[in-house]
């Protein structure tokens, strides 16, 4: 596990500096475009300030913002005992000391994400739709995938990469807007009389190229990395649960769902276990997608018959992908011990009852919305909405008068 974190840290740094260099270059060139003498420095300064502010914001408040934007609410064990237990099960399987906070999003579309730059204050959020469609093994698979993102320190990496991408996109936006309103031309005409016009033309061309290619480049970089993290989290999840079929079935159910996640947008989409912004019939989407094609992830998981170690995942990945590509870092492959999957387990979670699961998910959402739950001793469960304003409620079965606050 340590090896995995180490290799991720190294990658974090390379990415960090690589994208940082791109950012500075863009700042300098855009600045020079406006003012050849002092503009470069001002542009770099502006880019760095913007980046520092956004990075600090996302480091300290990013997960809170993300959770708030997606409408997630923190839950305690009594809201949805099974979810809480499954998270604890995966925490134990991973052998980690921290316990992620658990959030539920009231949305019928099944999906989930993890957040938190430090494992100690990480969180796992799932939609109520996920809870009502998945059985226990499938839920374990999804939670294991999210737990792996936290344990492998993927979130820090993705957060910083996301901010870089955002700043570069914003800079290009400002540049184009400035050009549209003719902000640059005033300076250009003045300076071209003084210095050589040729250099000015080069700067202008460079600036336009960077404004167009910068965001695309940053995005490709970002996508390439997030794609790898998804495969790796799948591999880790299979290893944690020893039951790849669970996650495979869950991915299938999520992909087949007809609901659309309400709160997802372009910025938050890469955080989810399955891209919530699915567009139909887009082959091109595979190239720029933040997530590997879901059918391929399922195929790999289902082919993990002999073993579920990282070595097995790498081998099966190459077999299905048809070409050599390192998806699991070398350092981890070296450490990998033989891990056999659970055998004789069919995906039939005998306790699973779709009606029950839906009821429990609904109850969880009601509890989140301050419904008062009373278990009458006669066996009737009374759920009282927060706007119910009478002081007592009478159980229609046994006549017990329940006092409310």
């Amino acid at each position, binding site marked *: 596990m340590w090896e995995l974190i180490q290799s991720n840290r190294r990658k974090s740094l390379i990415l960090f500096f690589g994208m940082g260099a791109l950012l500075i270059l863009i700042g300098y060139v855009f600045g020079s475009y406006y003012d050849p003498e002092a503009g470069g420095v001002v542009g770099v300064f502006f880019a760095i300030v913007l980046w520092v502010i956004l990075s600090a914001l996302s480091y300290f408040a990013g997960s809170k913002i993300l959770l708030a934007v997606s409408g997630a609410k923190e839950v305690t064990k009594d809201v949805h*005992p*099974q979810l809480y*237990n*499954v998270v*604890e*099960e*995966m925490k*134990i*399987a*991973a*052998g980690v000391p921290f316990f992620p906070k658990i959030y539920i999003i009231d949305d019928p579309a099944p999906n989930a994400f993890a957040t938190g730059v430090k494992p100690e204050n990480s969180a796992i959020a799932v939609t109520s739709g996920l809870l009502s469609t998945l059985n*226990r*093994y499938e839920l374990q698979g999804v939670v294991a995938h999210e737990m792996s993102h936290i344990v492998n320190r993927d979130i820090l990496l993705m957060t910083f990469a996301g901010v870089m991408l955002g700043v570069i996109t914003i800079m290009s936006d400002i540049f184009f807007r400035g050009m549209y309103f003719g902000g640059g031309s005033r300076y250009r005409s003045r300076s071209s009389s003084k210095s050589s016009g040729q250099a000015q033309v080069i700067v202008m061309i460079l600036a336009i190229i960077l404004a167009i290619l910068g965001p695309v480049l940053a995005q490709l970089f970002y996508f390439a990395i997030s794609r790898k993290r998804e495969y790796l989290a799948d591999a880790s999840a299979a290893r*944690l649960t*020893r*039951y790849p079929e669970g996650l495979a079935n869950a991915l299938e159910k999520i992909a087949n769902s007809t609901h659309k996640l309400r709160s997802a947008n372009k910025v938050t989409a890469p955080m989810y276990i399955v891209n919530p912004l699915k567009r139909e019939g887009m082959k091109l989407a595979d190239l720029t997608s933040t997530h590997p094609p879901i059918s391929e992830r399922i195929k790999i998981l289902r082919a993990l018959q002999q073993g579920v170690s990282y070595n097995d995942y790498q081998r099966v990945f190459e077999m299905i992908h048809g070409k050599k590509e390192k998806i699991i870092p070398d350092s981890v492959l070296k450490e990998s*011990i033989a*891990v056999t999957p*659970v*055998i*004789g*387990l069919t995906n039939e*979670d*005998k*306790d699973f009852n779709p009606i029950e699961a839906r009821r429990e998910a609904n109850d969880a959402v009601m509890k989140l919305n301050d419904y008062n739950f009373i*278990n009458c001793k006669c*066996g009737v*469960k009374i759920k009282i909405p927060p706007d119910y304003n009478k002081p007592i409620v009478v159980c229609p079965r046994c006549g017990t008068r329940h006092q409310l606050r």
Partner: protein
Amino acid sequence: MIYFIIFLAVIVLIILFFVSIYNALIRLRNQVKNAWAQIDVQLKRRHDLIPNLIETVKGYMTHERQIMENITKYRSQAMNAQTVGEKAQAESLLSGALGQLRVQVENYPDLKANQNFLALQEELTATENKISFARQNYNDQVLMYNNKIQMFPSNIVAGMFNFKEEEFFEIKDVAEKEVPKVSFN
């Protein structure tokens, strides 16, 4: 003189090498201990749940006195076990008896509709899972630790400082092994 320095340097390097192996062994051993503590926590949790379960089930189940007595008996055996082997033995007997109880629950629809029992059932299923995941983590750690002890050159250091191989936490019951993630029903 120059040979002496080279000799000294080699000695220092060897010592450093051995220290790093020693530290790695200590780290692995601590991980094994920590993993064991995790299993222990969950086994205790299961022991705590059992009186509550028996209490809830008693009123409904009339013909399963023997199973309930066995559960109580194996529970106290497991609580008093000393070694890993003994503990594994008693715990797997306990798992078996709990499994029998689960099968019988099917015959009592009233019990299955009882809110109290449903909550207990979720807790027991979760605890069984936690035990099996804690065991899985423990056995992985033991495997890595034992590998280190057996392999050259760490086996020399392990021998010098008396690092002993750890026992795996095996479940003897065959039926239980095939379906480690027990679910009710």
